[in-house]
Every structure is written in C-alpha cells, then in structure tokens.
C-alpha cells in the first residue's frame, strides 16, 4: 500500500511516495531525499547523531516514523547556511574545534540550534552540557562543543540586538 507523505524540508515542499510504513524520518531524509548530512549513529535514540529540527523542535529522527509526520517542516544541517555564509553555530564549532572525526557534528549543531531556540542555557556551561547531553561524541570534543555553543549564543544575541537596533 503506497501512501504519499508531504514534508517541507529546508524550505522546499516535497511529496514522497512511501511504499512501506516502517520508514523513519531519518531514512527518508538519507535514502529518499539524499540528504545524507543527517547521520545514522545508533538508530535507537541514544546518540543524537540524527538530530533534526521538526516543526521548530530538536528531535531524534531515527525514532520518528515518517508517515506520522505528514505536513511537517523539517530543518536539517543542509538547510542552515545561507549560501556560502555559515550559520553562527557552524562558525563557532570551527572556531572552537568542536569536532574531530565529524560524524556526530551535524547532530551536535542541530541540537545546539535547538538548545539556543529553547533558551534554557544562558551563559552557564553546566546548563549547556546538560542541554547537550543527548548528543554523544566518541572523539570527546565536549569541551570545544560547550565553548562553541556558548560563543554561538553570544554571537546570535549580538546579531538579534543589532536587528532590533
């Protein structure tokens, strides 16, 4: 039984024929839409490599059934830069060596964007670490990741103050 699912991914509306209800949002992004920036780590909701922003909130795309999210808006790592201008969180990860092998990085960055949106962390490194605990980094780049998130928070704060002015 084929069912069509419509998703707006990185601003582009896509209709996908699903011939199998088992397809997760993660597999749909990677296998059907060829957006392989979102990584499959554990595929069981434990590592955070598959983090995307779904309808404005960070979630594990490996534990979301695509068919259940008909009509949703999805933001992935491919959709955050503006042309050649990196997103401030991407800039901050580069500036603070927030990665080594890079496999967890798209999930870390999407999770950080979600965290900054949620607005719970402020400038407290403990709250940043707590808020990022759903993203594992086997290389152990946690110190750089925490610094990057704090720095990105500052940069985004300055940018929004500028916009207001």
């Amino acid at each position, binding site marked *: 039984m084929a069912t069509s699912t419509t998703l707006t991914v990185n601003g582009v509306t896509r209709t996908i024929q699903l011939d199998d*209800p088992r397809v997760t949002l993660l597999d749909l992004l990677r296998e059907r839409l060829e957006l392989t920036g979102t990584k499959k780590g554990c595929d069981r*909701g434990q590592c955070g490599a598959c983090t995307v922003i779904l309808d404005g909130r*960070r979630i594990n795309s490996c534990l979301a059934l695509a068919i259940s999210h008909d009509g949703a808006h999805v933001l992935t790592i491919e959709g955050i830069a503006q042309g050649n201008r990196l997103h401030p969180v991407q800039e901050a990860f580069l500036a603070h060596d927030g990665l080594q092998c890079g496999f967890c990085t798209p999930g870390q960055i999407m999770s950080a964007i979600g965290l900054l949106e949620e607005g719970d962390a402020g400038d407290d490194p403990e709250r940043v670490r707590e808020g990022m605990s759903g993203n594992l980094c086997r290389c152990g780049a946690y110190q750089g990741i925490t610094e990057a998130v704090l720095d990105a928070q500052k940069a985004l704060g300055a940018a929004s103050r500028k916009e207001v002015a």
Partner: protein
Amino acid sequence: MNTFDYVRPATIREAVAAASEPGAAYLAAGTNLLDLMKGGITRPSRLVDISHLPNLDRIEEPSDGGVRVGALVRNADLARDRNFARRFPAVAEALMSGASAQLRNAATVGGNILQRTRCAHFYDVASACNKRDPGSGCDARGGDNRLHAVMGWSESCIATHPSDFCVPLVALDAVVEVEGRTGRREIPLEMFHRLPGDAPDRENLLDTGEMIAAVRLPAQAAQFAAHARYLKVRERTSYAFAVVSAAAALRIENDTIADARVALGGVAMKPWRAREAERVLAGAGADTSTFRRAAEEALTAAKPSGHNNFKIELARRIVVRALTLAAAGTSERLPALPASPFAATAGVVSHV
C-alpha cells in the same frame, strides 16, 4: 522490524475501535515503541497513530483547582509550562531529569506512563523473559540484575518501571483518565501499574483497546509547591535512567510538617508511594532524625532480587536527601542539573 498496517483515526472512538483488534498497538511519538520494534521486542501487526487526534495536547485548569494534562502533551512542553512548573515543581524537575532534550521534545505524557522496562534481558530477545514471552523464564534472576527491583518483585520478574515523571505524580495523587469501548473511566496512578506477580506481561489495568486520554492532579497537590523536589541518582550525570530516585513534597506550618508525600522510583515495577514514610513525617519536625525514621519506614519491605542489595541503603539515603532538599525549599529556577545530587544547593549539606 516486522511490517504493520498503519491506521490514523480521526476520533478517540475510531482509535479505540482500531486498537481493539488483535496485534494492535497505539503510536504517539514512538520514542519507546519504535525502539522496541527495531529490536524485535514488540511486534505489533497494526499501529494506531493517535498523534493527530484533536484536543489531547492541552494543559487545562478545571474549576476544581487541579490540572488536567492531555495524553499528547510533550514532556518538555509540560515541564516548561510556567504555571504548571510553578504549581508542581517536583513534576517539572522529574520531567527535565528524564531522557535527553530531543526525546523530551517528542515523548508524550501518555507514552511516559506506558513506557516499558529497560531490563537488559527484556531487551535481549535471546534471553528468557516472562514479560516479553510469558512462561519462558527470567534470565535476570542470576543474570544482569544490579539495577533491578528491591520492592514488589516476584520470582517471575524483577524488572523496574523506568519513569521519572510517574514518581512525583504518584506522590501527588495523580489520576489517569482512560478511554475505552465502554467510554471513559478513571484510575488512580497508584493503582494503574500492576506488580509482576505471576503475570509480568500484564503491566497495567488497561483493557484491550483502552488508551490514556489525560492525567490529572488534584488542587491539593499544589499546596506542596514551596517544598517539593525530585532527586535521582544515575550512573552518569545526565541522560540516564534512575538507579534510585525519590520525590519528596512537604507542607510545613510553624516548623512542623503538616502533610508529606514521598514516592520512590527505580525500585519496583511501578512508581512506589511510601505511605509509611508519610505517616512518620506528618506532625513531626522537619529535621534529619525525622527524615531518617521516614526513610527506614519507606524501605522496611525491601529485599534484594540479585546483586542489588546496595539499592536499599541507597534508597534510604535518597529519601533523606530528597526530604532535606524539599525542606530547604523549592528553588526559584530549576537547577542546572535537574534532580541531580551533584547540583549545588545553597544551605544544604551535600552528604547526609
């Protein structure tokens, strides 16, 4: 993962009818169910997707002064609801200490109550497990059982219920609203989960096709807001299930405990209300010796089910510490590390 029919009902009535068929399971966010299906632990032949049902994602304040939380409210949304967190701070703290930010953003209130145990032998389909495969035995007995139950377990199952959310809820007299073929009924959360006995595959009082529509807290639950905490010891600081946890809520008048609520998590196949401890606390002074007596009472029925004798003494200490934190007062803002014993709290000694 086995394949399944996917059904998306438009009303609760349609959902209940669809889920009354053999092999059917309800799907909300799927954060627990999909994990179980990927591991072959549960194999539903039909998923009834209730995540699009209307009106189940609301936090309402009925005229009786309590709160009614729809089954589809996301864990993070409930914890962040300012009014809810102000009135029921221990519930908000428990929610924010559970899982990860990504999971809390997706997981629902109803799903949290219905989540399955994390017993490694339940998850390992090569293990004997009376819960997964009734009558097959229990490899957790004599197996990996360091984190297993110390209360209410049976020879057939020693697993624990993993929810944080349910612990303060049961302490505060939460009621579960259930919809089924014969309409709506209410079940006190304290009665909702079944102890394993000789049928560990039956985990709660839901009949075939029944679904959780909402969970309610009574107005009296808000009277503990000034002195209500949740404390949870984990094997890592964040993003782990409880080894042992406790919710403590006090109503203090003139330096005396007028009323108390205590419940334990991670010790049994249900959130464990410690009424004996509450009786010790009521009318007593809010001091460490009272808290120690309450902790002793809370654990009198405890016995180890394996390599977990340490959990009994740990649970006593967690009760004392949770009560000490509650007596010190609910903090204005959730600690940086919610429910963590590593969170610094002004005026409270870290070791008791």
